[in-house]
C-alpha cells in the first residue's frame, strides 16, 4: 500500500501526454502505434454483454458512430492535454459546436457568444442555429460588461474563442468565466487557435472546450475533425435547466446521466444523446492522422509561434503595411493579456492591414509563391487569405469590420518552414502590391 506521507506522483509533462495519453499497446496484437480500427461494428462477447453495452452498463464498443477504439485514443489524449475529464471526437469543429449546443439547449433558449469569432461560427450561430430555435446574443470580448448585460433568464451558455480567428484577439477567459459562474451557466471555449500547448482554458474557468482538430491538433492540413472536452467542473444537477444531464432519459430507460457518470457526464451525454442520434462521426482514419499530428504538437506550436513573431515584426516595419494585429508584439493592444495567458507564444494566426485596401489584399494573395492561398489555418505550410473576399464574404460590410475582416485585412497562418523563406516570400509579393 501507499505510504500516506509520500508526495503525489509526478504528473507527466505536456509532450509526454501528447505522445502517450490514451495510447496503450494493442492488447491483442501488441501493435505499438495506434491501429486504425477501420470497422463499422464490433462483435459482442455474448448476448448479456450486448445488453450491458446498449444499456451503457459497461465500457466497450458497439458501432463506430458511437465509439471506435482509434477515435477513443484521440479523445483521451485531447482530454488529457486540456486537463479535462473526458472528450468526444467528431467529424468537424462545426459538428463539435452543434453537439455541444444540442446537449445544452432546447428551442427558445439563448446563449451569449463573443462577437469576435471564426466567420463560419458566426454563420452557424446566426442562421443554422436559429432554425433550431437556439438564439444567439452577441457580446464584445473587449468589454466584459457586455456579457453581463446580455444575460437573461433564458441564457443557457456562454461561448468564446481563446484566441479569436482571424484577428489575434486574446479573450479574457477568467473574466468571462466569472460572468458565467454568476449567471450559473457553463462557459464554452473554442481553443482551436491556441491549442492546449499554449493555453489550457479549463485552468481559467472553461467548463467545456471545443476544437476544430482540422487545424493545429492535426496540424498537417490533411483531415477534418473536431473534439469536445468536458472539464468536469459544471454542476448539471444544481437546477433543472439541463435536462439531458439531470433528468431521467427515456432513451436509456430512465437513466440520469449526471448521477450515473459524475464529472464526465457531459461528454457521455454529447456522445449518447448527440453523436448517436445526429450522427457526425469522425472517420477512424482521420482520427489516426490527427493523433499522429498531436504527437508533435508542442514542437510545432513552439516553431509556429517563433516564426509568427518574426513575421509580425517584419510586417510591422514594412512601409505598405498599415497595422499588424499580433498579440506577441509589445505594441499590441492584447499584449498584456497575451503575457498573462500565453507565456509560451501567441500562436501562428494573425491579421494585418494593407495601406492599399481591398485591391492590395487581392494583389498580395495573387502574388505569393510559398504561402498557399486557401481557407484554412494550422497547417505546417504557411497559409494566406484575404477574408473580405472569401471567408467573411457573406457578412455585411459593417459585420466584416466588427469581426475583424475589413477590406484591407489579410490573415496569415504562419507555417513551420524556415522563417527566412516565409519572410522572403512576403517580401517579393509585397513588392508587387
Amino acid at each position, binding site marked *: 500500500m501507499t505510504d500516506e506521507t509520500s508526495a503525489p506522483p509526478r504528473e507527466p509533462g505536456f509532450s509526454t501526454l501528447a505522445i502517450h495519453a490514451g495510447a496503450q499497446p494493442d492488447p491483442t496484437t501488441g501493435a505499438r502505434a495506434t491501429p486504425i480500427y477501420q470497422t463499422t461494428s464490433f462483435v459482442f462477447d455474448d448476448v448479456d454483454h450486448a445488453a450491458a453495452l446498449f444499456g451503457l452498463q*459497461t465500457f466497450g464498443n458497439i458501432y463506430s458512430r458511437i465509439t471506435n477504439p482509434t477515435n477513443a485514443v484521440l479523445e483521451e489524449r485531447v482530454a488529457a492535454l486540456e486537463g479535462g475529464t473526458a472528450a468526444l471526437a467528431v467529424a468537424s469543429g462545426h459538428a463539435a459546436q452543434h453537439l455541444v449546443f444540442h446537449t445544452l439547449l432546447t428551442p427558445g433558449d439563448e446563449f451569449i457568444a463573443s462577437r469576435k469569432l471564426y466567420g463560419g461560427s458566426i454563420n452557424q450561430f446566426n442562421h443554422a442555429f436559429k432554425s433550431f430555435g437556439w438564439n444567439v446574443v452577441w457580446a464584445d470580448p473587449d468589454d466584459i460588461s457586455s456579457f453581463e448585460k446580455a444575460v437573461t433568464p433564458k441564457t443557457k451558455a456562454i461561448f468564446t474563442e481563446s484566441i479569436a480567428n482571424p484577428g489575434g484577439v486574446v479573450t479574457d477567459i477568467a473574466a468571462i468565466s466569472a460572468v458565467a459562474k454568476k449567471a450559473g451557466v457553463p462557459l464554452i471555449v473554442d481553443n482551436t487557435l491556441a491549442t492546449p500547448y499554449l493555453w489550457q482554458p479549463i485552468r481559467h474557468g472553461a467548463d467545456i472546450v471545443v476544437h476544430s482538430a482540422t487545424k493545429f491538433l492535426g496540424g498537417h492540413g490533411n483531415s477534418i475533425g473536431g473534439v469536445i472536452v468536458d472539464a468536469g467542473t459544471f454542476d448539471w444537477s444544481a437546477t433543472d435547466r439541463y435536462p439531458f444531464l439531470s433528468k431521467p432519459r427515456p432513451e436509456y430507460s430512465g437513466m440520469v446521466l449526471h448521477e450515473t457518470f459524475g464529472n464526465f457526464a457531459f461528454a457521455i451525454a454529447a456522445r449518447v444523446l448527440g453523436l448517436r442520434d445526429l450522427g457526425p462521426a469522425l472517420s477512424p482514419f482521420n482520427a489516426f492522422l490527427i493523433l499522429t499530428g498531436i504527437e508533435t504538437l508542442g514542437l510545432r506550436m513552439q516553431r509556429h509561434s517563433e516564426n509568427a513573431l518574426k513575421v509580425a515584426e517584419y510586417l510591422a516595419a514594412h512601409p505598405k503595411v498599415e497595422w499588424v494585429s499580433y498579440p506577441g508584439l509589445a505594441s499590441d493592444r492584447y499584449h498584456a493579456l497575451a503575457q498573462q495567458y500565453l507565456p509560451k507564444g501567441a500562436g501562428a494566426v494573425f491579421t494585418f492591414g494593407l495601406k492599399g485596401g481591398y485591391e492590395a489584399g487581392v494583389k498580395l494573395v495573387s502574388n505569393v509563391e510559398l504561402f498557399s492561398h486557401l481557407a484554412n489555418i494550422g497547417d505546417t505550410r504557411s497559409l494566406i487569405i484575404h477574408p473580405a473576399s472569401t471567408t467573411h464574404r457573406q457578412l455585411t460590410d459593417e459585420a466584416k469590420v466588427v469581426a475583424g475582416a475589413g477590406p484591407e485585412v489579410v490573415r496569415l497562418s504562419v507555417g513551420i518552414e524556415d522563417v527566412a523563406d516565409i519572410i522572403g516570400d512576403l517580401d517579393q509579393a509585397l513588392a508587387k502590391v
Partner: protein
Amino acid sequence: MNHDRYDDTYIRAILSEVRTIAIVGASANAARPSYFVMKYLSERGYRVFPVNPGQAGKTVAGLTFVATLADVPEPIDMVDVFRAPEHVPAVVDEVLKLDPLPKVLWTQLGVRNDEAAAKAEAAGLKVVMNRCPKIEYGRLSGEIGWTGVNSRTISSRKPLRLGEGVQRLSIAPRGPKSS
C-alpha cells in the same frame, strides 16, 4: 489518511485484493448506477452481494439481495455504500459488528463522511470515499478509455485481457511476468 485524493497504487491494491463485495443500497432497477456497479463488478470476477431490505430474496442479474450486512452468507472483504452521507455512520456501525471485519469501506461518488471514515479506519479498515469502483476499475484496466474518458494513466505495457471475451481488461500488473 487524506481523502481528497488517492494514489492509483492504493486503489489498485484494494481492487486486486478484495474478492467479496457487499453493496449497501443496491437497486434492482437496471437504470440505476448501483445496478450497473454490481453487475459490472460481478462480471469482473468479484463475488457481489446486493444489500437492500426492500428487495431481500429477489434475484437480478444472477445476484440475490439480502436485507442486512449480517445476512451476507460469507465473509465480506469490502462494503460499498450507495447511501447519502448522513446514513454512512449507521452503516459503519453495522460494518464494525461483522465478524470477521471487512478489509475495506468504500463510499460512492458524492458520498463522503469523514467522521464515519475515521471510525472505520480506527478499526483497521482501509477507506475510499467519493469514488466509484466501476469507474476506478475501468480507469486502471484501461477499459474506460474506450469511452474517451481521461484515465490519468499512461503505460507502454500491453493491457491484459480478462477471461474469454475481447472487450474486458484486467487490472493485474502488466508487463513481463517476474521470474
